[in-house]
Each structure stands twice: as C-alpha cells, then as structure tokens.
C-alpha cells in the first residue's frame, strides 16, 4: 500500500483546525502549524455568532443557505460549543418596512425558519428592548465558543494522528522546480507543548502539499512562494459587557451598518461591530469612536446598554477576499463567501492551495471543500465524515447530568464546568483531591485548569482560552496569581513568572478600551492588588539584587517591642 500523502496546514484558526480534522479523518497525514496559540488570529477575535444566515438573507443568499445548513450541523456535532439562544431582527420606527419584508422573503428563499413577533411579543422574549421598537423577526441564531470549537477540532485531528504545532511561525515556503515542497518553521520553544523559556529552533517540514489557511495573513504566506493573494483585511471592534443584558442574539433589521448586533456569550454580551479596511492585519488603529459607536448605537435597541458596565473591547480582522476584477471600494460590499485558490491552475505553482474569505459558521464546509480538493489531487477516495461524527466533548451529550454532587461542585459552578467540558466532564473533573474554584467570575475549578495546562503547556493565555479563566468582570485581578500557582505544579518558577507576565499583559490590552466608570474602578483595584499587595511591578526576581541587610530585620519574637498583642 502506498503511504498516505503528508499535508502541512498553516493556520490554527477554525478553518485550519477544521481542515486538519477532515484530512486526518480521511487517513491523510497532517501537520498543522500556527504562529500563536490556537485561535490566535481572527477566530479568537470574533463576536461568537452562530449565524442562522438571516444577516445575509437579503444581500447574499448563497452564503445565507450555507449558514443555515452549517448552523444545523454544528448544533449536532458541537453541542458543547453552541448555545441555542435564538435571534431577533428588531425593527425600529425609522427602519424601512420594505427592508423588513425583503428580509422575511430572503429568509424564506434561503430555507431559514422565521416568525414575526409584535413589539409586545419581542419584549416578552427580551424585556430590555426599547419601548418604541415596532416588531421583530425571530431566527435560529446562536452563540458559539470559537475557542472550544477549535480546540475540539484540533483534539479530534490529533486523535486521528495529526501533529499540531502551536507557537511555530512559518518563515518560508520551500519551492523546488515550480512546486511547494515544504515549510520552514521557527518554533518559539522546541516542538510539542509550548513551554516558556525553552530553547526553540527551526525545522524544515517537507510536505506533499501545503494548505494556506491563514486568513488575513494569507497574502504574507503567498508572497513566500511568489504568488499574489489579494486579501482585503477589514477590522471590526467587539465590546464586551460584564453581564448578559440579553439572552437572545439581537440584530438591527436594516441594511448593513456599524453597531448592529448584540451576542450573548457565556456570562457576557458582546456588542459588534465596525467594518474598516486596514493595510496590515497586525498593526492597525484601535479607535475610541468605535467603542462609543457600539454603545450609543446599540442603546437605540437596548437602552440599558448606555449605562452598563463594559469590561473590555477587542478588534478582529476579517480575511475578506474578492477576485481582483471586482474591485469594491467599500469593505462592506466585499462578499462574505469563501474562495479556494488552486495555485497550480491560477499561478502555475504546484503543491499549494489557499483558502480565504468565509465565516466561522461555515468553517466545516470550507474545510470539506479544501479536503476534497487535496484528496482528489492524491487519489484519496475516503468520504468527508466531519458533518456526521461529533467533536470530542459532544458525544452523547443530549442531557446535562447533574454533576454537582458527583464532583463536589457547587451550583452554578458545576453546571458551568459541565457546559464547557461536555462529555469530557467525567474525565476532567474526577479527582481525588479538593477541587476549589480558581476563577470566581467564570466559575473555573482547579481540575479544569490542570486539564488545560496538560493540553497546552506553559501558555496561560492558552489555558485562559480553553477554560475562560480570567475572562470575567475582574479581568484577572483576582486569579492571575492563582493561575501562576497552578502552573507551578508542572513548571519551574522562571517559566511560571514569564507566563504570568504574558497573561497580565494580555489581560491589560483589551481592558484599556473600557476604562471609565465601574471598569476603571476595577482596573485601579487590580493595579493595587498586583502592584501594592504583590509588588509585581518591582519584582526583585526580575530586577537588581536587593540589599536585604539594609532593611529592618524585625523584632525578636518575644522582645524588641514590648507592647502587648
């Protein structure tokens, strides 16, 4: 028997992880390389909407039909990553009646089930909707946790023999005789699990085929092999609220515009978004007006947002693509559809396929298209099974069991843990020792943290993404040092200190966009805890040696100071 082809997938977002899973399930040998941790790029920076397709039902019915189909698939194969919140398209008096009707017709044409609700009925679903809204269309929108989804895809790929390398940056593509034959990779810390401070190294990974699934970064990879890929990165802001003002996805029912969606997500609600083309997917301005626009515009739908507490904001870049001939001026006109670029046909360069455009909701479909293409090229006849086989954690997960007593966890901590872990809850939470809560805001227990450390090495940001620890209202003020303590079980103090610093740095970055009112107060408290109580800004382990002998050596245990105690 001929040995299976070896495919290198570049990019650890939803598309790359989905491709790795699909190909490895078909028996192809796969290596996935990602420059950061999983979801480092656009996947980790989106609002978490599981599209019903309703948003595209007027402008792009092909995408709309794909969305509703994949929405149904994900509810089935990724039930522990999806919350079936439902969604509403809400019409205000100033929004067009004709557009409302067109939206309804478009949904019908795309096979998206809808129901028209009166203002009263809509407020019965979402009591905080503005008093002057006119009506709404209900659609099967949902919320999806992109971190959990990508980790589950990567875990499944690994179960099928794939090699997953995070913190491994592709520095060059090897091209020989007009064919891409491999990638040069710079490992931040040696192959395998990422460990801070471990010596890295470079590696040449030979491949029969390379898939470029780097989204907004696709042009950069293409350039390494001399091909032009005209990605049009477009930034969008997402503003995170400290609580769920709504439990249903709320869309504004009008043609595309900024600040028109609220997605309830775990304990938070996420406001989105803007759409502005940028030159560089890593360096672009994060602007103050964008955050203000989210709050002020969406408060027209949900007035309580105006005075609600914002905990942070973050930006993502959409990997938009259109064939160069279209040449849209405005990024909002660029299609949300995906494109498979066969560089053999397009650029006479064998061995490389690029996938660009698309959306998280259709990641599986995109992965299937790429995998079909690669399999056809190598004569692999296995069928795609990713729509039928549940992801790890979602097998037999029809009924949430009551794990509280079983694992000694208090509600709602038990419920939250089981929701996150799905059918893996048994394996992860069964410990013989006490299982205290490490992150109180998000109800994450030690067992879950230890499980995540076991999966991802010393990267506390990867632990954060897997568990949501440090992502609640206090933004890590109370738990960063606890996570460091948990990491110390497996890693040395110097490694822990670096990982801890990385986590503090990352947590600060997004909070800067929410620094007024309650969250500025929280930021000052966090600053005081880390800097005053822990003295982490002047950690003597990082600085010059301290002359301990010059300081007060204390009073003898039973003398020196005679006052009573």
């Amino acid at each position, binding site marked *: 028997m001929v040995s299976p082809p070896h495919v290198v997938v570049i990019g650890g977002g939803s598309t790359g992880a989905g491709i790795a899973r699909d190909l490895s399930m078909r028996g192809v040998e796969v290596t996935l390389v990602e420059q950061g941790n999983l979801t480092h790029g656009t996947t980790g920076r989106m609002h978490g909407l599981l599209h019903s397709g309703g948003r595209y039902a007027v402008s792009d019915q092909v995408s709309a039909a794909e969305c509703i189909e994949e929405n149904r698939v994900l509810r089935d194969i990724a039930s522990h990553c999806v919350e079936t919140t439902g969604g509403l398209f809400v019409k205000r008096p100033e929004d067009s009646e004709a557009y409302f009707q067109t939206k309804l017709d478009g949904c019908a044409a795309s096979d998206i089930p809808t129901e028209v609700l009166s203002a009263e009925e809509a407020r019965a679903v979402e009591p905080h909707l503005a008093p002057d809204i006119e009506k709404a269309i209900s659609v099967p929108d949902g919320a999806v946790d992109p971190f959990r989804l990508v980790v589950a895809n990567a875990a499944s790929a690994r179960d099928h023999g794939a090699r997953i390398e995070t913190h491994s940056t592709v520095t060059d593509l090897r091209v020989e005789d007009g064919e891409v034959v491999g990638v040069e990779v710079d490992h931040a810390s040696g192959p395998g699990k990422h460990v801070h401070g471990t010596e890295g190294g470079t590696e040449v990974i030979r491949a029969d085929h390379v898939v470029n699934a780097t989204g907004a970064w696709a042009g950069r990879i293409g350039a390494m092999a001399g091909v032009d890929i005209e990605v049009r990165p477009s930034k969008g802001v997402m503003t995170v609220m400290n609580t769920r003002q709504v439990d249903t996805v709320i869309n504004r029912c009008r043609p595309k515009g900024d600040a028109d969606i609220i997605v309830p997500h775990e304990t938070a609600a996420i406001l989105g978004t803007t759409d502005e083309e940028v030159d560089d997917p890593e360096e672009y301005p994060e602007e*103050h007006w964008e955050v203000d626009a989210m709050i002020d515009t969406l408060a027209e739908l949900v007035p309580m947002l105006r005075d609600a507490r914002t905990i942070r904001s973050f930006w993502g870049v959409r990997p938009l693509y259109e064939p160069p001939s279209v040449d849209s001026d405005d990024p909002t006109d660029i299609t949300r559809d995906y494109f498979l670029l066969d560089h053999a046909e397009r650029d006479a360069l064998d061995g490389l396929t690029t996938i660009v455009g698309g959306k998280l909701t259709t990641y599986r479909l995109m992965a299937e298209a790429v995998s079909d293409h690669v399999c056809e090229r190598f004569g692999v006849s296995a069928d795609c099974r990713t729509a039928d086989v549940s992801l790890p954690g979602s097998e037999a997960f029809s009924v949430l069991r009551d794990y509280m007593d079983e694992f000694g966890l*208090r509600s709602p901590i038990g419920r939250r843990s089981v929701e996150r872990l799905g059918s893996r809850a048994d394996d992860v939470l069964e410990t013989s020792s006490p299982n205290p809560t490490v992150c109180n805001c998000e109800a994450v227990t030690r067992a879950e943290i230890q499980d995540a450390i076991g999966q991802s090495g010393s990267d506390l940001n990867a632990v954060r993404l897997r568990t949501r620890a440090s992502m609640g209202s206090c933004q890590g003020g109370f738990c960063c040092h606890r996570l460091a303590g948990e990491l110390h079980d497996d890693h040395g103090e110097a490694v822990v200190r670096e990982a801890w610093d990385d986590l503090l740095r990352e947590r600060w970055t997004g909070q800067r966009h929410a620094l007024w*009112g309650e969250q500025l107060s929280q930021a*000052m408290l966090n*600053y005081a805890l880390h800097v005053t109580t822990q003295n982490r800004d002047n950690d003597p382990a990082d600085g010059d040696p301290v002359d301990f*002998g010059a300081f007060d*050596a*204390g009073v003898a245990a039973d003398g020196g*100071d005679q006052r009573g105690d």
Partner: protein
Amino acid sequence: MAIESDVLVIGGGLAGLTSALAAAREGAAVRLVAAKQSTLRNASGLVDVLGYTADGEGPLVDPYDAIPDLPADHPYRTVGVGTVREAMALFDEVTPRYRGGHTDANALLPTHGGTVKPTARYPAGVSDGVASDSRDALLIGVESMTDFDAPHVAAHLTAAGVPFDVRGVTIQFPGDLRADAAITRYAKLLDTDGTVEVDGRERPVRAALADRVAAEHDGEPRIGFPAILGDDDPAEIRAALAERLDAAVFEIPMGPPSLPGLRLEDSLFAALDEAGVSIAAGNPVVGYDGDGRVEQVYVEKNGAHIPNSADQYVLATGGLVGKGIDSDRERVYEPVFDCHVAHADDRYDWFDREAFGNHDFARFGVHTDDDLRPVDGDDSVEFDNVRAAGSVLGGYDFAAEKSGSGVSIATGYAAGRSAARRAR
C-alpha cells in the same frame, strides 16, 4: 433638625478613621459617616509609608529621607515630613498589634505572590516573616486555598534573592471544610479551637493543624502560613502552634478578603469608640447645601435624605476603588462636592500601554492648598471648610510608590487636626 457636630468626616477607610481620631483628640465633637461597612478588607494590613520614589527608584530603606525630594504637589509635600512622623506616632499609639515603629527603616515583607515589598509597619503576626531575617523558613499552603501556593511562593522568594533557605509544602487542612470555604471560616474555626474529625477521631483544630505541619517540618526555625490564623486573637493561635511546632509562626498577607486588613479596621474603630466619635456606617452622602462653604450634607438612610451639619468637613471618600473619584466616558469627577479633578479630555490618555506603566488614572484625585482644602482649576479654594484626605487626593500613585497607607494616615491626621482647630 440636622444632626450636628464640630467636624463631620465622610469616609470610613484609613484616612477617615485617622482624621476622626485626630479631630477627637483635639477636643472636637466628631461624627463619621461611611458609605460602606468595610473598606479595609481589600488592604493587605501592611502599612506602607514610601517604598519607591515617584520615579520608581527603590526599594527605599528610609522613607522619611526621600519625602523632601518628592514632586511638589505630592500630598506628603503638602503636609511635610514632620507631620508624617507625628501621624505615624498616633497610629503606633492606637494599634498595639503593629510593629516596625522601633526604626525609621522599611522592612521587606514576603507577599503572597512570592515577591518582597517595602513597608513601614506590619502586624505582629507577620513580624517573624521579615525577609531581612536570615533564619530559614518553611511555608505552609492549604490544598484547597488557591490564593497561596506555598511551593510557588517559596521558589519565587528564592529567585528574589532572600538571604535564607525557604521551602513550601501544601497540606490538607484538618477537618472537612468545603473546597471553597471562605477565609473567615478557617479563622473562626481556629479562633474557637473548634473540633474537627481526623481519621475518625475528634480533635481540636489547632492541635490537628500542628500535627499536619509537624509531619512536613524539618527543623526550620520559622514557619509561615497564609493569613488565616484567627480574627479575634491571632497571637494566641500563633503561640499555640509555635509551642507545638517548636518554631516561630508568622502569617503572609493576602488579597481580599484580607484578615489583617479587617483586624486593622477593628482596632481603629475601637480607638474611635474610646475617643467618643459617633459613627454611622452603611450610609452614603448624596448631596450638600452651601456655596463657598458647606452648610450641611445629606446622608441617605433607608431612602430618606437626612441632613448632617458641621462646622468643618473632611472628605475621605477614597479614590477610584472606593468611588471617592468616579468617571464616565467623558470626565473624571468627585461625586460628593463635585470638587475639581484634573484629567485629560481624551480617555485614551488616562492610561499607559503597559499594564504596570505610568498611569494617569492612578494619580487622579483632588488637588489642595497647604491646608488640604480642595482647589479648582485656578488654584482657588473650593470650600472654606472642606479638607480632603487619603486616596481622594491626586498627584501620587500609591500603588507604584507603596505609599497608600502612609498618605492616608498623614493627610487624615493633618486634615482632622486642622478641622478641629478651626471648628468654633
């Protein structure tokens, strides 16, 4: 009819308590109103005066030496180094459980994050933990307590270069406390020396805890615990453990809810009671009458607005954490008297890009004249009879300098004393 006093202190933190005490000692009739029941639960209980200069130099051996070189608008410069010393002497007098007054030098104390920090006064219970003491130490962590990972703290202290060997072990606390039991639950159990079940036998908790520790003890002359050793009488608990273990016993302060902070609050409230200060906690000030001079303030109680009038007022409502300074997307303000708070127009100029960078927000607060009276943007006194104390003051970053407690005590003392002297 309004509730009347010579001096009304608004705020129940370290600054408010100190100023009420200082005013009462001057013979004034003092009333203190506080919005919250407890504010020191966030504080470690270490009383810092100055650990680093405004430029980040340090750790400073002698805080008093460095005060004259601080920026001119620093609250320590406003009151002067002599007042700081007097204020610390008052603090020492009313907190017999505190140590460190025998020297001007700072002590370096281990933190629960594994660093050391400079501080001027420390509870007797942490005294045996000072980092300049060369005796070896054993640190004890409790398995279900995520705030203090003893092996990690020990390794971090070693990396910080402490002049002794330190080792950390984690034990299971005797008895069957829930994994998420509150700190106060442990303290209460130790306070009462309650009975716990160990291997089917009923035992007093102090003895059972000492046995668990003894099994790990390798002759180290001092043993450190997270700060859970009792609320009412920590000295007795430490003595009981020390006797059984034949080693000195100390605590390492932790974050909120902090027992050493709560213990400090208790001793200051006791001193205020003794000085005859009338105290109303749990009631925020929601308004005032007056122009150029405050005639009376309104205290909210069960929905009603109760007038309180005094000749002199001390504003000690705290900083951003305590909401003595608040903000929205456009501005930073002082909510009680709307005193002027200088700040950049663009909120993106309020912070630094680095988490521990040079943050404007950390220095937000009111600025004052030499008598601690808040001034407006033109340096004119806002109210003739209002003085500000503690972290409602601007112009210093208490976290970076490690100066929070000292500024609260010094400015609280100065404001309270001056208010009492000016009162009719």
